């Protein structure tokens, strides 16, 4: 009521009310537009430009813009392995996150009762320490003389000199751990909204608990599944800390390659091209995924 009362005098003052309202909308959009312009459009333009620079240039000499599309080809040729590896590791980590996160989010939403808020705080508690510190902690946990490796060696799952560090297992475990909260929170938001009476209705209509989950709970939680998997997969595919700290060069992910191309090799054009390829791949996969999940309207 108050807002419409506040708008009314404006509309009275200006006979052309439609126009007036139109301007208000644009003015309100302005901060976000400036923010996007400064922090997305300009850097994006700069990245696209960098990826087309003449690769023979250097940081010292400067680069020439030669629309050198071959950069993309070279980047793919040299770095397709870490690129594919990134998508595979991120995919597997996302899958683990989904399974673990769904169970956790379901338990928090439906079973935690008065502990609900405390458990949500616990889910985000790891954010109180830095990403780097948490990953380093995993280095200790999975270390060659750590409890886990020793236990696995004792039960002969790992050989006497088997290790976890510097293996894909460690990298995927690190990714799963680090991105789990990004999965749990959207899943929780979705599952928590599900009216419990719908599940009762399903069971009243001859659906056993498993069918009830498949036909009611799962479809209703899909928006959370889609946003959770995107929030996990996208950063995981570009992550390089986990691969660098928990893996070896054999587990190098594309983020790590891009980082070293930028900072160590000073090969800006190839680094830019590789960044663009990663981004385009992710956008394509996300579009395909969202279409397939049929949840555009739910997002």
């Amino acid at each position, binding site marked *: 009521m108050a807002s419409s009362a506040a708008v009314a005098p404006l509309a009275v003052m200006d006979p052309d009310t439609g126009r007036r309202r139109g301007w208000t909308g644009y003015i309100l959009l302005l901060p976000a537009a400036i923010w996007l312009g400064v922090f997305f459009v300009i850097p994006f333009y700069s990245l696209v430009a960098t990826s087309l620079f003449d690769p023979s240039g250097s940081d010292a000499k400067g680069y020439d813009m030669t629309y050198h599309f071959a950069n993309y080809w070279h980047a793919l040729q040299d770095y397709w392995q870490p690129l594919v590896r990134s998508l595979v590791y991120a995919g597997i980590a996302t899958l683990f996150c989904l399974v673990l996160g769904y169970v956790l989010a379901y338990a928090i939403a439906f079973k935690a009762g008065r502990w609900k808020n405390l458990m949500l705080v616990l889910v985000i508690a790891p954010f109180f320490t830095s990403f780097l510190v948490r990953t380093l902690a995993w280095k200790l946990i999975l270390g060659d003389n750590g409890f886990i490796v020793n236990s696995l060696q004792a039960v002969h799952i790992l050989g006497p000199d088997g290790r976890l560090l510097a293996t894909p297992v460690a990298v995927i475990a690190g990714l799963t751990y680090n991105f789990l909260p990004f999965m749990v929170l959207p899943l929780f938001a979705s599952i928590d909204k599900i009216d419990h*009476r*719908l599940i*009762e*209705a399903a069971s*009243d209509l001859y*659906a*056993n608990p498993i069918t009830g989950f498949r036909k009611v709970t799962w479809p*209703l939680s899909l928006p959370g599944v889609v946003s959770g998997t995107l929030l996990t997969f996208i950063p995981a595919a570009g992550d390089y800390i986990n691969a660098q700290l928990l893996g070896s060069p054999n587990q190098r992910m594309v983020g790590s390659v891009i980082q070293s191309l930028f900072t160590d090799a000073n090969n800006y054009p190839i680094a830019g091209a590789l960044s663009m390829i990663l981004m385009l791949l992710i956008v394509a996969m996300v579009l395909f995924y969202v279409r397939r999940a049929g949840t555009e309207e739910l997002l």
Partner: protein
Amino acid sequence: MSQVAEAPSSGSSDSDAPADASTYDGLALRQLEKDFGAFRAVRSLDLDVPRGSFFALLGPSGCGKTTTLRMVAGLESPTSGTITLAGQDITYAKPYQRPVNTVFQSYALFPHLDIYENVAFGLRRRKKGDVDAQVREMLDLVELGSQVRKKPVQLSGGQQQRVALARALINRPEVLLLDEPLGALDLKLRRSMQIELKRIQDEVGLTFIHVTHDQEEAMTMADTVAVMNAGLIEQMGAPAELYENPRSTFVANFLGQSNLIDGTIKSRAADVVTVDMHGIDVSVRADRTHTQGDKGWIGIRPEKVLIGEEGESLDAPGNTVPGGVVTDVSFVGVSTQYLVRMPWGQELQVFSQNTGRHRLFEEGERVELSWRPEYAFLLDASQDASAGAQKIDSDG
């Protein structure tokens, strides 16, 4: 309607015992109890619902009627007691394993499925063939044949209610449970849905158990009404019987309105009880007397009370009470409602049909009230005269 329906309710120790649950073809609840922590929601409930009847469980919120319904549906498990359906013990059967379906108060339609799939849900779970024909037939029955591909949010409240009904009915359950399904509808829609529901029940012939706090709804729709209060069934019977001959002050006040006047019992004959009501002798039929003590509440429905000029000999060969003063007159068109202050200070309600045979009385006029003895009833003096009264105006 049926003899079985008038089986005794809990709390009363009537002579005719409940039917043997294992051979009874309807729904039988025996000694059913439900505790939530220290709170006893349902206490020692015995109930027989005959097959094919339209049964209403009526009571104020928190009286245990919904809990009872949920136990029959299997959504709540009883603390003790048994539920048998057509001779089969289903007390602890899973909700998806019993031939009982529910129309939920909030409808609980699946928001991600369209109307068609909502209605087909139960059939698909039980792998029934011929889903399409049955769904279309059912949607035609509830007059939603043209809306099959809409999602529940696109429908109005009344349409959603009909989808919920179709979704439950299509499974042809032995018992259909209706949990205040009309509560969310506005008055006009509610009246038409009441008629619709009754029509459908006649057509399909299934057992309906309808939980409601709306006494008018219960009386219009059901052939048997059980009035529930604080986890107990106060009284059960045909609507007219409950209304005309309530056994407790709660029933007297919850179903319609009643004037309850305290009196002292002077004598008990075989068929009539004489009561001293503030110095006036009034008589009550023995079969309408529900107290053993020597004091009681004389009950009389407002529309059964005749109002006349002082000294006028009214057309009521019975109990006449002189010395009333009209304190309030509300003209409602079809009738006029009076409040009359009696010599002992109590205000009685009188509903007088505007037949044109009598003039309207005005505030402050002295009047005489009377009623035929066969309409009065006598209730136990230990009961609270205002029990159940507060709900009268607040339904919906």
